[in-house]
């Protein structure tokens, strides 16, 4: 009980760091110097460093800030609670794993691979030192087979031996991540379970719908292939619903067949970018609702992290836009302050 009170107070204190639309609009008008000062991004102002290197350093700093908050939040938690949040945070370690595998499969230079790896805290770090030290692809696959990711090693071997694109492999890593998140969320009971079902369910609904639309209508996957890549959500897009949606033939049919409230949320959407934007809003609203009204400290902590990650990701988009010298209108689309079609239409 005391832990819950402490955790809830911690989350409430941290949530003052979240950015609202007004603050984002102010930031969108700020210079790189102001952004660097406000968010402690010293790397942004380093002279004589390539833009790509500065961008990577900024991304690394923002991720470090997010993970430092994760570390603060898990401190008073029990082992299962901690496990859930660490599973959520393991996505960054999985980025590293994908980078390593892709880098080795395409025989990139060690230093080039290293440059693209995130420096993560020990609690989230994968045992990828052995993967990193692998000197050829068969060795990498053997190391992978001895790791907790032994199940994806077979896919990796197939990618290597049949010269296929590593898409299936990376999809398998994402799938395992989502399935583990759902499994951990389902361990809880009572107040926690209900709030987590909404939150993790919202997360999965968003991912499943985007993956489904992308696989079926952008990549031209068959219903079977598309369904296989999805992880049933504990909320709206459960297994039977996904089977039904995957079997539909057009983009509009899928949107029309969505359950409420997704059907209203996505009414009139004509393309995947718009779906992505609105589903982002859907998850954002769900997370804000949990953060504002749930009594579960755990669910509120996860909601905070989801919102904070989104904020930092928008901030990174803003900084990248500035570094690349993109027009202000385009940057504002990138950080969800303007509708996507406006500048394109104007340009046309």
């Amino acid at each position, binding site marked *: 009980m005391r832990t819950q009170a402490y955790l809830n107070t911690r989350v409430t204190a941290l949530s003052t760091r979240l950015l609202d639309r007004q603050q984002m609009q102010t930031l969108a008008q700020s210079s790189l110097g102001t952004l660097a000062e406000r968010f402690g991004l010293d790397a942004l102002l380093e002279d004589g460093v390539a833009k790509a290197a500065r961008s990577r350093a900024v991304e690394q700093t923002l991720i470090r800030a997010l993970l430092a908050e994760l570390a603060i939040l898990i401190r008073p938690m029990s082992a299962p609670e901690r496990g859930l949040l660490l599973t959520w945070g393991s996505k960054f370690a999985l980025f590293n794993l994908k980078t390593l595998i892709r880098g080795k499969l395409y025989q990139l230079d060690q230093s080039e691979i290293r440059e693209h790896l995130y420096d993560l805290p020990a609690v989230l770090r994968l045992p990828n030192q052995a993967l990193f*030290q692998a*000197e050829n692809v068969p060795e990498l696959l053997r190391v992978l087979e001895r790791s907790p990711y032994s*199940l994806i090693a077979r*896919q990796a071997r197939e990618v290597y031996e049949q010269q296929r694109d590593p898409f299936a492999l990376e999809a398998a890593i994402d799938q395992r991540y989502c399935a583990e998140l759902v499994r951990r969320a389902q361990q809880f009971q009572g107040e926690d379970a209900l709030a987590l079902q909404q939150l993790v369910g919202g997360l999965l609904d968003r991912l499943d719908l985007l993956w489904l639309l992308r696989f079926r209508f952008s990549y031209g996957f*068959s219903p*079977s292939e598309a*369904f296989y890549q999805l992880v049933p959500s504990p909320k709206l897009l459960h297994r039977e619903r996904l089977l039904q949606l995957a079997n539909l033939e057009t983009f509009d049919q899928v949107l029309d067949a969505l359950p409420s409230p997704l059907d209203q949320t996505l009414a009139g959407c004509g393309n995947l970018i718009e779906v992505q934007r609105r589903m982002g809003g859907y998850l954002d609203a769900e997370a804000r609702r949990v953060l504002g009204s749930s009594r579960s400290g755990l669910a509120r902590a996860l909601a905070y992290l989801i919102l904070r990650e989104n904020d930092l990701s928008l901030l990174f988009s803003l900084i990248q836009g500035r570094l690349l010298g993109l027009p202000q209108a385009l940057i504002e689309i990138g950080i969800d302050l303007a509708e996507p079609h406006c500048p394109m239409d104007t340009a046309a």
Partner: protein
Amino acid sequence: MKHARLLVMTDDLPQASLALAQTESFHPDPRPPEAQALSEAPGRGYRELYQQARSRLDKIARLVELEGPPDLPTLRVVDHAELAATNQELATRWEEASRFEEGFRRIDDAERFIRDQAAALANFADLKIDLGTLRNKTRFLDFYVGIVPRENVSRLEGAVRLADHLLFNYLQRGDSAHVIIVGPRGEQEAQLQSVLASAAFQALPIPQGLDEDADPAHQRERLAQRQAELEQQRQTLTETLADWRHTHQDALLEAQRTLLLAEPFVTLDPSIRSTGHLAVLAGWVPARAVVALQQRLQDSLSLPFQLDCRDPRPDERPLVPSVPVRARLLQPFALLVKQYGIPQYGEVDPTPLFALTFLFMFGSMFGDLGQGAVIALLAWAFRRRLGRFWLFGILAGLSSMLFGLLYGSLFGYEEILPALWKSPIHHPILMLKLALGYGVLFLVTACLLAIYNRLAVKNVAGALFGHHGAINLLFYLALVWGGLNLARGDDFGAAPLALVLATLGALAGYAWRQLQAPVGEKVLVVFIETLETIIGYISNTLSFLRVAAFSLNHAALSIAVLTLANMMGTTGHVITVILGNVFVLVLEGGIVMIQVMRLQYYEGFSRYFSGDGHEFTPLRLRRGVRLTTHGT
């Protein structure tokens, strides 16, 4: 301990590292130097090269069992070029070795596959169907028989359903599920192939000839034959690997030597900073070793250098390493002390006192000549397994034997041996008095050590007024004085009472001044702390009664065993005495050990031992272990 700062020319760094490693008296200090100009890390490239070479050698060692570092006949500097050449040599060797590893993996895979096939066929054996049909697709039906990771089954089932197929999961083995997928032939087939690949589906081919010869015994024979072929392949590969190892044995040995010689410079790397041709490295050196170190550097370095040594500053004290006790007899006790912590630099190392008091208390609580001999003999018999702890067992056994002689106890019998002193069970009050006296002595010693340790770090206030400081000790002695008066039947005594009140007043006054809180809270805290001091010292002294209690308990348990034994015939008597002694040895021996550790850690260490230091681990060369060849 002295803080050493060595200024050398950058070119001389590898030689300086080697010289420092030879002296085995330099503990690196990785703190960055105060001079801002010294910001370069000259050994970074060397270290990366070393780490890559080391990783390659370690990977080869996993395959061909290199045992430890080899002898180093001569000490020489390994320069960057030599290290790079070794790294290149190891790269080539590892590329070759990696192919062997891949070969073994393929054989493992094939064997696993045969096991799965055997399991599948055993499962099909009871079915009244023509298995040959499962191998060939029919005009209308499509069959897939195989295994998938268990966690993929549910999604695969849904995916094949969308392609108008059905999935039957007929067997689960470990993480794998055996499945049959059936559906109509047609355009869905291509889709399914892609899904099956994503699900890591592995087809289990139904062996040729199954339709003509469905006898399970014949099928098992075929699989066994295939298994034997794989065994043969493994044998051949092992022999080829042995030849490869034999061919490259000298090169690998030489690579090991090179890496050993390069290791000191790499270990020192985080402690080295440089600017231009000048490099500085810092560390801790025992005061007695400074002259030898200076001499070694003079003999080894060709270019000028400067070694400055100074005493540690007070703010550096927590960083100074402490040298562990070296005496062989004390090693097992040092391991137990280390479980609690490592003495801070300047603190008294409690190991000798710990060893002495431990043996005294264990022996007095578990005094029996026979049982002590059993403990000592067991420790001797299992000395290889016990590592450094075997000596601990021997000493504990000997202590138990010594007290057994004093008590006149042999495997619980008190009539066989004449007691050199007294039997505890016949003098319980005397034993309790002695235990109390021992407790007082133990606590006074602990307080004196606490005072010394604080004075050693110039914490005078702590030594006087802190927990278990001089005022506490004075209070305790006054309490003991008064207690003795009461025990003699007199009053507590005016002088001890005055001393008790004065010391308690001093402690309360000190606590009052130290506290930053409202008056009410201060009153409460000071009152509780003062009360705790009184209760604490009394209860801590009484805690030592367990030393006597366990010596009585030991004798009482033995009496119980012998009483039971006397109720039986000769055979029963012998069996009961043996089993009873085993019971006493295991159960009581274990409890006594725990109780002694508790007294040491709680009543002793918590008073005077901070345990937050760190151990002196000097730079040294690993050598003296030879390379052994695989399979020999």
